[in-house]
């Protein structure tokens, strides 16, 4: 045990991998922000909509109108500071809060990949990523260290490992493995992909992609850990993510993952990379090679920082299993679906028509969703129960403010999952105006009529 602790936690290791990671992370985040802005998505997703879907408990996080751009500017600037390693602590804390704020503004845009960035930047607050090859280290030699404790780099590897492994576990279900769903729906529609396109409608290709995808996710953390399989594993990482990029609209995620997995390589690789950078930018790299190591507290004494990080990982390991505390099919109810690395698992779509009934007069009418929601919000709302509830509550408030009294909200909804025919999703007799959001099971979801076996 002691040997394990010393090898993976306390032992001093080269700081170069973490420095490279910091630089690449900062650059990728800056590019993400610039890309997001250049597509006009800030305007489209955070300024134009009239209504925003909040995460339970974070209802106070809202876009700030035109000042929303300001948050993105702060986020982009802090990413530059992180890359440079300048005022690193302040920069990474600022990045974490600004990025997370952006993600909390509207859960319509929830992506596992954004959640991953939030977690990673939180973790990086506690890592000495500015100890080496940074402006901080250059300006203040007291902050400069060539070596850092092993846990710092290992915690990033662990987080990446969790992401991949849990994504693989989530694929171990009967739809994915034995029906090749949803790839059977998605792949044929990509028939115009050069080279691959003509094969994508072949059933065996769809099964091969499904099984390969599951196997890849489960195995890749381990293949990256062992030196002998590492080059092969990295080729797989590149091929896999480039393929997902070509076939699906998943933005920067593949690149972020490809770059992140570089941390698994030996420090000699990172030194070479930094040498190359030094040559390019005329930086004196040997300035940082001072042989100094960050000193860890002696064995047995856990610092508050390490306790916090241990807790962080316990939460990460347990979070994806919380769905087990809910009855019903996870893919259908989505109770415990988010924050669990369930990536590209379902072809799910729905239709929700809301009926506003004035209880006193008995008069009723249907709502035109486009009066309140953007097409994207309407699409996301129509198959996720917490969205449906939040929207129903909003409609009740809106129409009561409009002068209608004692308003009841009913929804007529249908959802199709992984190629099954659509069925009724929400109990049409339940007045959603009376229901409240909570962590408890929503018993007004009509149970799934089929069965999906597996994790």
């Amino acid at each position, binding site marked *: 045990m002691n040997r394990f602790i010393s090898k993976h936690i306390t032992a001093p290791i080269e700081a170069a991998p973490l420095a490279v990671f910091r630089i690449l992370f900062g650059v990728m985040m800056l590019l993400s922000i610039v890309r997001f802005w250049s*597509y006009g*998505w800030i305007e*489209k*997703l955070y300024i134009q909509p009239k209504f925003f879907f909040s995460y339970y408990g974070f209802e106070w996080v809202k876009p700030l109108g035109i000042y929303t751009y300001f948050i993105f500017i702060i986020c982009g600037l802090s990413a530059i500071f992180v890359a440079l390693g300048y005022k690193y602590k302040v920069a990474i804390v600022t990045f974490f809060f600004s990025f997370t704020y952006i993600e909390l503004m509207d859960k319509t845009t929830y*992506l*596992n*990949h954004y959640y991953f960035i939030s977690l990673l930047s939180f973790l990086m607050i506690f890592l000495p990523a500015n100890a080496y090859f940074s402006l901080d280290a250059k300006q203040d030699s007291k902050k400069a260290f060539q070596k850092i404790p092993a846990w710092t780099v290992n915690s990033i590897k662990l987080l990446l490992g969790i992401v991949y492994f849990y994504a693989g576990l989530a694929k171990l279900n009967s739809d994915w493995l034995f029906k090749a769903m949803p790839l*059977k*729906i998605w792949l*044929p*529609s990509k*028939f*115009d*992909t*050069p*080279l*691959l396109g*003509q094969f994508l*409608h*072949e*059933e065996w290709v769809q099964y091969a992609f499904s099984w390969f995808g599951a196997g890849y996710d489960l195995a890749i953390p381990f293949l990256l850990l062992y030196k002998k399989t590492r*080059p092969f594993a*990295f*080729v797989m990482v*590149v*091929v896999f993510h*480039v393929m997902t*990029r*070509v076939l*699906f*609209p*998943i*933005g*920067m*995620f593949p690149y972020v993952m*490809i770059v992140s997995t570089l941390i698994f390589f030996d420090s000699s*690789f990172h030194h*070479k*990379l930094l040498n*190359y950078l030094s040559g390019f930018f005329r930086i004196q790299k040997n300035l940082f090679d001072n042989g100094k190591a960050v000193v860890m507290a002696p064995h047995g004494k856990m610092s508050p920082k390490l306790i916090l990080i241990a807790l962080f990982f316990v939460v990460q390991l347990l979070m994806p299993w919380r769905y087990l505390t809910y009855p019903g099919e996870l893919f259908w109810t989505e109770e415990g679906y988010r924050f669990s690395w369930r990536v590209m698992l379902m*072809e799910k*779509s*729905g*239709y929700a*028509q809301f009926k506003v009934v*004035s209880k006193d007069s008995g*008069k009723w*009418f*249907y*709502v*035109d969703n486009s009066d309140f929601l953007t*097409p*994207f919000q309407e*699409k996301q709302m129509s198959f996720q129960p917490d969205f449906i509830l939040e929207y129903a509550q909003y409609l009740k408030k809106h129409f009561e403010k409009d002068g209608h009294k004692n308003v009841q909200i009913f929804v007529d909804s*249908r959802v*199709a999952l992984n*190629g*099954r*025919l*659509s069925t009724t999703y929400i109990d049409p007799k339940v007045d959603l105006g009376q229901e409240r959001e909570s962590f408890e099971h929503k018993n007004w979801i009509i149970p799934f009529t089929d069965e999906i076996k597996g994790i």
Partner: protein
Amino acid sequence: MRRFFTIVATAVMIWACSSDGGNDPTDDVVVDPTPDPVSFERGPMLMNWADNIIIPSYEAFSSEMTGLQSAFDSFKSDASEANLVAFRASWLSAYKMWQRVSMFEIGPAETLGLRLNVNIYPAGSDKIDGFITSGSYDLALASNRDAKGFPALDYLINGLGDRDEDILAKFNGTEKENLIAYTGDVIADMVSLSTNVLAEWNSGYRATFVANNGASSTASVDRFINDYVFYYEKFLRAGKMGIPVGAFSENVLPQNVEAYYKADVSNELFLEGIEAVQDFFNGVHYGKNTSGESLASYLDALNTVKDGDDLKKLINDQFDLAKTKVAALEPFRNEIEDNVPPTNMLLAYDEVQRIVPLLKVDMVSAMSVSIDFVDADGD
């Protein structure tokens, strides 16, 4: 290090080879040597849509407009009862043909805003009266869309008086010249719009439309399916039935019935519209009994992969049921004005409504078409 750069270089090459050229029609030289029944080619479907449905429908619509113009010309030279009746018949015939082209709001029709310019109702009768009196108006203005097109003609030839004598009295009265001039301008506007749309289809848009046979949010099939479902939901279901019957408001809105002044043709127009939507779904050639590649045959092709339920049949059955229910109704205006609440029409509306999730959820999801261009990342 060298190995690393080799990997990166390879990745960049894979990416470079695979991320462009998707819309270039010359890429289609790779032909599957053994056609697999499972694979469905979108190109032939687009060709069938353009050559056998869309363009012939626009041609028929264009000739209806010519007919309307000449009926008006006769009426203009002699505002007699016989000419009014003939003019009205031409109007109704053109209006019914309009129901067959209204859903094709893509390309030229979208650019010109054909639907917005030809069929915004209820007509602004006060606005029209004002224009006639003053004799000064600009029909090209977006704010005047409710003063032109079929609804304006409906007001002019059916709504100026209770009986034909009253209407004819207006056309032969003090405002005769202004009235005739205005009616002529409204028709000229419709004729020019429909001529332009057809000309654009024939002079190049057809090629663009058919060549854009890929799968992306900007490809013809994806875009058209979006427009098609949108038309069904907003204009056919809500516009012609839902809004007037009061499904979206606390009270009924009979004045929002299509062809309000003619009063007895609204369900005829609706049935023509839903028939056109169903025919399009099944790829039925315009004016013929033959059919070609269509959304229905696409679903059939996909179904062989999925072993799923027969969605094509479910959709057609629901269309048939909805049509039967609507056909049994009185004219919509009577249904709404004579019954409180208009129960039968609401029940028929429910059947019309049931088609929406079948198209918007089941069909769209089976084809993996993203409903409306949502340009955000997925994961």
